[in-house]
């Protein structure tokens, strides 16, 4: 083992440790949420995850973005097989280790397909950049897409372009060295794409080529280590969290909203003629939670997981009838705010900083919440089945049940339902009048 192997091993271990540390920090943030039981219907959940996350079944509802995304996704999955080889080579100082353990035809096939995918990913990322920055597709420029979210998206795309370029240049340099017999190794591999890079490097000296080959190799692998860690502070976390989010997704019909259990208990008590109104509450009953959600910690952990999984694609917002008619509400913003707020709460806790803010009010305003028609366009359009609507509803519940802060007209509607069992001021005795109209 030479010095370079030690350096490699060191970088490898540090980046893995750093990754684990920051990932567990996010997981502990998610655990700040309230409990919700999603341990039921296991086989259905696995199927859902395979279909929606692994199988990308909802992506192609938007053809161009969907097809391009699948290219990048497949490229990411498959090209990462190469990482195994890079790590073995890096640690043990071998060169193209896989070629020595698998048949050369298979190795050729692998490298060949990596190259094809690499160039496809590269092109897809360039198109993505054009869509965001030149065509300025509206959903990438909504109000909540401030400087950082836009930069974040561009950084990731540039990152991927650089990684793919490095991979192809490395193969081209390696190929020339091999053909000159100037390499210290003899591994033939297919180069369906990088062969087109060869003419640009053919005039280079072997020494320079060797430098380029090593440089791109290191660039590629350090890039991957960095990318892996960058993802944790980026909207790009969906590459991992899309899987748990689809596994723990709401499997009920979209129209079915949860019945708050804490309310059920109280209503049952109210309606039970045998209940003793003066009895003290059962000893085992825990301190009652507030009804609905004021802050991110009042949400359940699936909602918080959703918030970290959102990659800010904006399909929800671009289908939201309120948003499309100029209202303040944006379902994507609801998820982004929830993520930013739960991160803030957790960081403040860790640093012992006093926290006086809340999700409701400081991040999300009642006006946004009251603009929602509960039409489920957002939940239906999310490619990984995130549920911003449930967050909106939980916050409405807080406004109404804890603060009595519903708009006046809605308070009138409530009064009507309470008094005469209809949202309007009509008497129940007149319910059958339509018969004789």
């Amino acid at each position, binding site marked *: 083992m030479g010095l370079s192997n030690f350096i490699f091993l060191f970088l490898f271990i540090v980046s893995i440790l750093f990754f684990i540390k920051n990932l567990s920090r996010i997981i502990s943030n998610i655990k700040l949420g309230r409990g919700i039981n999603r341990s039921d219907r296991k086989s259905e959940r696995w199927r859902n995850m395979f279909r929606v996350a692994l199988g990308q079944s909802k992506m192609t509802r938007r053809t161009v973005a969907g097809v391009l995304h699948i290219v990048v996704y497949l490229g990411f999955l498959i090209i990462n097989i190469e990482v195994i080889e890079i790590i073995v080579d890096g640690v043990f100082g071998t060169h193209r280790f896989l070629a020595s353990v698998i048949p050369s035809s298979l190795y050729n096939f692998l490298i060949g397909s990596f190259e094809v995918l690499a160039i496809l990913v590269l092109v897809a990322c360039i198109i993505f950049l054009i869509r965001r920055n030149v065509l300025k597709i509206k959903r990438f420029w909504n109000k909540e897409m401030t400087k950082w979210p836009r930069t974040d998206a561009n950084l990731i795309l540039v990152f991927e372009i650089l990684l793919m370029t490095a991979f192809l240049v490395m193969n081209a340099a390696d190929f020339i060295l091999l053909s000159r017999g100037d390499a210290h190794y003899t591994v033939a591999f297919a180069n369906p794409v990088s062969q087109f890079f060869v003419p640009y490097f053919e005039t280079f000296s072997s020494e320079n080529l060797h430098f380029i080959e090593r440089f791109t190799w290191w660039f590629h692998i350090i890039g991957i280590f960095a990318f892996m860690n960058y993802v944790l502070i980026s909207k790009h976390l969906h590459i991992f969290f899309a899987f748990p989010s689809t596994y723990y997704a709401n499997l009920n019909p979209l129209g079915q909203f949860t019945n708050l259990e804490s309310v059920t208990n109280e*209503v*049952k008590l109210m309606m039970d003629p045998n209940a003793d109104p003066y009895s003290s509450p059962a000893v085992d009953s825990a301190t009652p939670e507030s009804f609905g959600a004021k802050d991110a910690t009042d949400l359940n952990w699936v909602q918080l997981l959703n918030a970290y999984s959102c990659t800010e694609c904006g399909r929800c917002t671009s289908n939201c*009838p*309120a948003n499309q008619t100029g209202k303040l509400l944006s379902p994507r913003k609801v998820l982004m705010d929830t993520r930013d707020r739960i991160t803030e709460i957790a960081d403040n806790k860790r640093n012992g900083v006093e926290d006086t803010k809340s999700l409701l009010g400081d991040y999300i305003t009642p006006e946004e919440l*009251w603009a929602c*028609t509960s039409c489920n*366009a957002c939940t239906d359009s999310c490619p990984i089945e995130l549920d911003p609507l449930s967050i909106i509803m939980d916050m409405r*519940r807080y406004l109404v049940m804890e603060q009595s802060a519903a*708009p006046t007209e809605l308070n009138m509607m409530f009064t009507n339902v309470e008094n005469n069992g*209809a949202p309007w001021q009509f008497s129940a005795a007149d319910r059958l009048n339509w018969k004789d109209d």
Partner: protein
Amino acid sequence: MSELQVKTMAEFMEEGKEADILFWVGSAGSFDDRAKKITRAFVQILNKANVNFGVLGSEESSSGDAAKRAGNEFLFQMQAMMNIEVLNAYNVKRIVTTCPHSYNTLKNEYKGLGGKYQVQHHTEFIAELLEMGKLSITGDLKGKRVTYHDPCYLGRANNVYDIPRELIKTVGVELVEMKRSKRLSFCCGAGGAQMFKEPENGSQDININRTEEALSLNPDVIATGCPFCNTMMTDGVKAVDEGAAEVKDIAELIAENL
């Protein structure tokens, strides 16, 4: 014109009989003048097919949908439990309703509170009647253009997209689809208790946006299956181009062509 045959569940009980199915009229269907016409059209259909149905009449109360979506879970559950008590007392097994909001709530949200029923939207029920040969369409509206607006609580919320469309086609019309239809359907603006409040500030009202889309197809009729959608689209047509198209419930289209 009281040719409608309607009996309440209480009347059934007095006679010692049971209804096969309960027609849940809903608050809009009971009190809103436009929605009452839909109620009457649907009862016409039920009568024509000799369906043994009952209504709750004065014993019916708001399903609680509007209260729930407005955030008042207390009021919703009070309503739900009261209604469940009444429904269970009459031993109700099957429910049909002309309101997708009641449909969704009764079907999906009552079951967790002790009310388990087989619930159908009236379009599903009418389709069944046609299939069983209990109804036959005699009218023919050939040459008329109809576009269908998916109610959110029937479509995305409960995945009923095709049955309403098939029903519309039975009256011989040309069904033209809006660009945003089925899963992509654009809300009318009434859901989530918006029906009972002024819209928040914005550049346009949601129902205007949707009505413009519908009218761009030059339909004779904008069909829908929800009393709230009906109100929103009717208001929309008045505001965008009064008289440009009629807004009708599918039950009305069918009832006029029996």
